[in-house]
């Protein structure tokens, strides 16, 4: 790796204090991290540790009134709030936890996919539909032309998650943020989605930040792992390191939980530095 290219994403001491709370009590507390092009960073932690808020803050989507401090650098350049808005959906995309509620039930799949394209590629409007079809195929949805005309409630959970992915990929982002991408799915579908994410990294060279409480997922996906507790980073290292010698108590607890669910904790073959 060329050490003079700046990392894709660099976060320095990011803190988020929710609205209406004076002093202390930050949901994200001085978090720093780095993501290189084409690498997969996993962020693990129990619910409430601030991982979702971290992702939202990266995109500039913290709840109204929240105070955000710290620095976010994209390809070496500082991101002001407006800058983040320009990149959303285009260079950085996000996939949310519950596909049933994260998709607008009142709009067709086609509308929801195409509007991303229309927004960021206004000159190429005519290709929106074919691009959408392409993406649906890429995420493994059968009969994509039929699906385009349907509404979210007509699709199964797994399909909806794939649609969310397709939507995020419309403009071929450099970085994908995934918040609990497999939590609301059943086991077989989970495995398929994880495979899909790995394939996408191979084919598109896309970087990924995966947030989850399930260490088993990170074992299969992540190159590096960050563990959060109460808004702070308590552990950081390559996947094999963190799994082999967990330092923080929080990490150990998460690994225990994963082990009890009988998921293999062995790191994936291609991971680690």
């Amino acid at each position: 790796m060329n050490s003079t290219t700046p990392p894709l994403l660099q976060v320095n001491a990011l803190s988020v204090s929710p609205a209406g709370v004076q002093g202390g009590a930050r949901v994200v507390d001085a978090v720093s991290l780095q993501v290189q092009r084409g690498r997969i960073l996993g962020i693990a932690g129990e619910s409430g540790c601030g991982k979702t808020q971290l992702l939202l803050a990266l995109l500039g989507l913290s709840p109204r009134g929240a105070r955000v401090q710290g620095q976010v650098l994209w390809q070496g350049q500082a991101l002001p709030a407006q800058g983040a808005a320009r990149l959303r959906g285009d260079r950085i995309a996000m996939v949310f936890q519950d596909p049933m509620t994260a998709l607008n039930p009142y709009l067709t799949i086609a509308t929801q996919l195409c509007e991303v394209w229309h927004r960021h590629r206004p000159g190429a409007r005519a290709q929106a539909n074919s691009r959408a079809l392409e993406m649906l195929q890429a995420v493994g949805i059968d009969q994509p032309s039929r699906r385009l005309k349907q509404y979210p409630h007509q699709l199964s959970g797994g399909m909806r998650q794939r649609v969310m992915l397709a939507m995020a990929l419309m403009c071929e982002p450099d970085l994908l943020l995934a918040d609990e991408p497999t939590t609301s799915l059943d086991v077989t579908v989970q495995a398929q989605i994880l495979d899909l994410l790995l394939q996408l990294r191979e084919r598109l060279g896309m970087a990924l930040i995966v947030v989850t409480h399930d260490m088993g997922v990170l074992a299969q996906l992540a190159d590096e792992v960050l563990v959060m507790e109460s808004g702070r980073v308590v552990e950081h290292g390559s996947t094999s390191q963190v799994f082999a010698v967990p330092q923080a108590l929080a990490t150990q607890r998460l690994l225990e939980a994963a082990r009890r669910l009988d998921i293999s904790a062995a790191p994936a073959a291609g991971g680690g530095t």
Partner: protein
Amino acid sequence: MLRFIAWRLLAALPTLAVIITLAFFLLHAAPGGPFDADKAMVPEIRTVIEARYHLDEPVALQYLRYVGGIVRGDFGPSFQYQNTSVNELIAQGLPIDLTIGTLALLLALLLGVPLGMVAALRRNSLADRACTALALLGLSLPVYVTAPLLILLFAVTLHWLPAGDWGEGAWRNLVLPVVALSLPYVAYIARLLRASLLEVLQAPYIRTAWAKGLSGSQVLWRHALRPALLPVVAFLGPASVGLITGSIAIETSFGLPGLGRYFVDGAFNRDYTLVMGVTILYGVLIVLANLAADLLQAWLDPKVRL
């Protein structure tokens, strides 16, 4: 969809049956007949007239006769206006009611929706608090209060608009009645939309829309507004009931010759057939309005495809 409509119309029949029966027996059970007010009538003539209107027959027979008429679309003769049938009176009064009612509803939507949107988008700001207080005021002022006050202000004091009278439906005569009738609905719709929009804006799919990089107005108009309008559309059905009530007050206040006026006069003068005819007509209008609101809802909400 046609099956849905047919089914709904069919389901409305018990309601109509209840209305007809209820109104009929109430009117007949009350003390005093339709001609009591005409003290000057000689007994012999009264007997003849009562026979002509079949009032001397047993009540059950009168009922059957009446229902038979209804089925044929005949509401019977009016008792007050000796040579006019109720059908004719309805034909005269209904267009007025429909005009004012529809215009009031449109005005309510035209004013209420933007007010509600502003209040929701500028939540807790001065604009929001002002809109909310105004809306609450609008809800607290019934039409029979605003109507005379509006007349006092615009007609009597300022002489800008006529104080009443239909005037062949000239637009100047329509302004005050339509505005007075619509005010409570502007208020209701504004409040409804504000609450609904605030709720929709918290939905996860709105966050997704932002994450896709859509602009504020795209998020609002394409993603938030349609679901937010659903409760407003659902409200249109019950609103029509209120508009009917309101039109009674409006016609009384402004001296308009609509169904509401006929109804009140008829109730006072015990004009059985007129009162029942108008009541039944109101029932039918309510059913149709509810049906229209439901169809509109189905069109907006893909989860309710017919």
